């Protein structure tokens, strides 16, 4: 899997070109390979953006354990945990097996809890399990239990055990949180479809990284394309592109190409 997040904003150009040097050869680079711990994604409840971005980012940031060598993502057969509280499941539905990325379909363990307190318990148990690839949580709104202490607790556990946690907050205000990366994502018009000009194409999202440690915050248009063998690649751009994505989706790294535009 190759992936890249690039920012072509004027302020961050130098940083990106430095990043691009690190990117190459892109086969060995994984986005946020230094990233361990928990990330928040704030997303509207009427779309599947939050969950989709969580999956895309989790695939891009494979789990790194202390002193353990990480298997390549394609051969990772560990299950992942998907926790939803009842309100989130009612709001956005439950995960649908035929719609999941093909390499994740048989690995999904789903937990549905009646309230946010139970969801937090399930998330923490999931983080402390060594056999999980990553944990995705979906909590709707701003419940009282989901305060800074709970967030801090999750982040510390995730960093200690090295299991990435992506917590999707549906229809929530940006409250206090301890996560290393906090995104605010909405869906964006999809890339043109390769076969049918009238049809929706590969999904894209507009995501604002409003708090991050080790990375400069900014806004990206992120897209994920699934190749024939079922593995997905996530690419980011600082400005919406129209039409060029399908043409460029070859071996060349889009992230490396982005600053030249």
């Amino acid at each position, binding site marked *: 899997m190759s992936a890249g997040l690039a920012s072509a904003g004027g302020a961050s150009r130098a940083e990106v070109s430095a990043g691009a040097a690190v990117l190459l050869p892109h086969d060995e680079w994984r986005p946020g390979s230094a990233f361990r711990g928990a990330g928040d994604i704030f997303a509207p409840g*009427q*779309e*599947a*953006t939050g*969950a*989709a971005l969580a*999956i895309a980012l989790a695939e891009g940031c494979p789990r790194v354990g202390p002193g353990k060598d990480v298997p390549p993502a394609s051969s990772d057969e560990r*299950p992942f945990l998907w926790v939803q509280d009842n309100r989130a*499941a*009612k709001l*956005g*539905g*439950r*995960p*649908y*097996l*035929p*719609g*999941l990325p*093909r390499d994740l*379909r*048989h690995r*999904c*363990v*789903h*937990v*549905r*809890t*009646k309230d946010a307190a*139970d969801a937090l*318990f*399930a998330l923490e*148990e*999931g983080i*402390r*399990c*060594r*056999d*999980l690839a990553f944990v995705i949580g979906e909590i709707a709104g701003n419940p009282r239990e989901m305060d800074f202490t709970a967030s801090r607790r999750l982040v510390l556990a995730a960093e200690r*055990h090295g*299991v990435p946690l992506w917590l999707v907050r549906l229809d929530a205000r940006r409250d206090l949180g301890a996560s290393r990366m906090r995104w605010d994502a*909405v*869906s*964006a*018009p*999809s890339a043109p*479809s390769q076969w*049918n000009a*009238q*049809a*929706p194409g590969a*999904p*894209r*999202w*507009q995501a604002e990284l409003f708090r991050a440690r080790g990375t400069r915050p900014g806004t990206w248009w992120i897209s*994920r394309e699934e190749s024939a063998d079922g593995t997905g690649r996530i690419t980011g751009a600082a400005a919406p592109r129209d039409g060029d994505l399908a043409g460029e989706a070859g071996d060349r790294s889009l992230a490396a190409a982005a600053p030249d535009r």
Partner: protein
Amino acid sequence: MAIWLARLAIDRWRLLRPTADDTTHPDTPSYRGGRLAEGEGEDAAPVALIRETAHGPRIDAVNRAATQAGVRTDMMLADARALCPQIATHPADAAGDLAFLEKMAVWAQRWGPWSAMDMPDGLLVDVTGAAHLFGGEQRLLVDAQAMLARRGLTARLAIAPTAGAAWALAHHGPSRAILDTAANDPQEEIAQRLSPLPMAALRLDDDVLLVMRRLGLKRLGDLSGIGRDALVRRFRNRRTPAANPLLRHDQLTGRVPEPLLPVTARPPAMVQHRLMEPIRHLTLLEVVLGDLAAALVRELEGRGEGARRIDFTCWRVDGEVVTRRLELAAASRDPAHICRLFTEKLQNLEAGFGFEMMRLTASWAEPLDLAQVRLGETEGEHGTSLAACIDRLATRLGPDAVRRAVPHASHLPERAQRWQAPLDPMPAAQEEMAFHHRPLKLLDRAETIEVLYATPDGLPRRFRWRGSLHQVLRAEGPERIAPEWWRERGSTRLRDYYRIEDGEGRRYWLYRAGLAGDGRGGLPQWFLHGLFA
């Protein structure tokens, strides 16, 4: 000793029926322990137990009244109704009969050291050297007959030197037959004594019996009349004993040994503690629970098993018994894990005046090999295993909260996946079609949308869902999914699915239920069923 429970199915049915008048008090002389006696109440009328077959219901067992009316087993129910219109039918319970037989096999070990099941309605008990404990073989048979009659079962019994001979005598010999060989050639004597029995006494398959009848061999004695070579040649390619009369005859006389599979009761692993002083506090209870769990794990280790279900039973001083049950996702032998899961369930335990005895029973155990414990690896540092994680989740959130989706062969989207326990094996499934686009998330119920403006070809241009407006910019479809006529009503409407994207890039899965003028209701309605990534 062979026991033939000749009317097992109908006896079991009769014993499970309520008595004719429930007003009978247990103290009155006519009370028979709440069981229906033979020929009383419902059993006085003709009754048949039926099983469903491809060609309609077929009779499995009949009671005496039905036999007198001319109904036989293996008849079609329609034929039986012609003979005896008032016959009452009940479904046969073959699995229950088998479970009952297994229990009977263990129970029958009161007469001998080991017993075997003889499907479908017989038992074989080895009473070699045990008969003198009952005062001889004759007294043993009388005792067994009385014990079985007290349980309400019709039985025929026989004792013989080989299992085959005992079976033949129980089914086709005189009542309570005993075959004891005194001569120095027991094989010859058995063959001699059993020669008048019919060929069916050899436990042969029906088609082989037909062959034997066509050959003119009707009794066991007929076999000795023809040469052994001829029989060997005629049945040379029949390997199974049930298809080879010569092999069966040799087993009957004891020339060839007949291995039997004994039934052995296997009590579940159990440990219990009696306490000097009743305890009332949770901390002490947890200490006792820890000791019990360690003892149970040692016991399971000796058996090479791991527990899947554990019952924790506490006896209170005032006679109350409190039980807590725990189910594990995978076989486990970790005392700390078991204790931790139980403490979750002990919070609302009513102690009263205190508990005086506690017991831990592993009522369901699975084989689990011994495994090396890694030195210096603790849960705190290296995390829990997946099974332990699922156990903890299921204990707190309920067993239905933790699930895993598995594919199911259906085109209907909501039926295309099913939920099962996370560690169960994946069922075999056909590869789904890769060219279909399916949403990442599916709503539990498809939600109605209000179409405000539709294009001439029927696709909505603008619609309202959950109070907000959506403008359709791009769409693909329809993908038509027909209802499953073999399980749904005929008035179910087909669905035309569309993938759409609205002005803000939100991607949805819409469908229209039915077509205008399909004769299955009014104008078709629109629904939103899934959310794409």
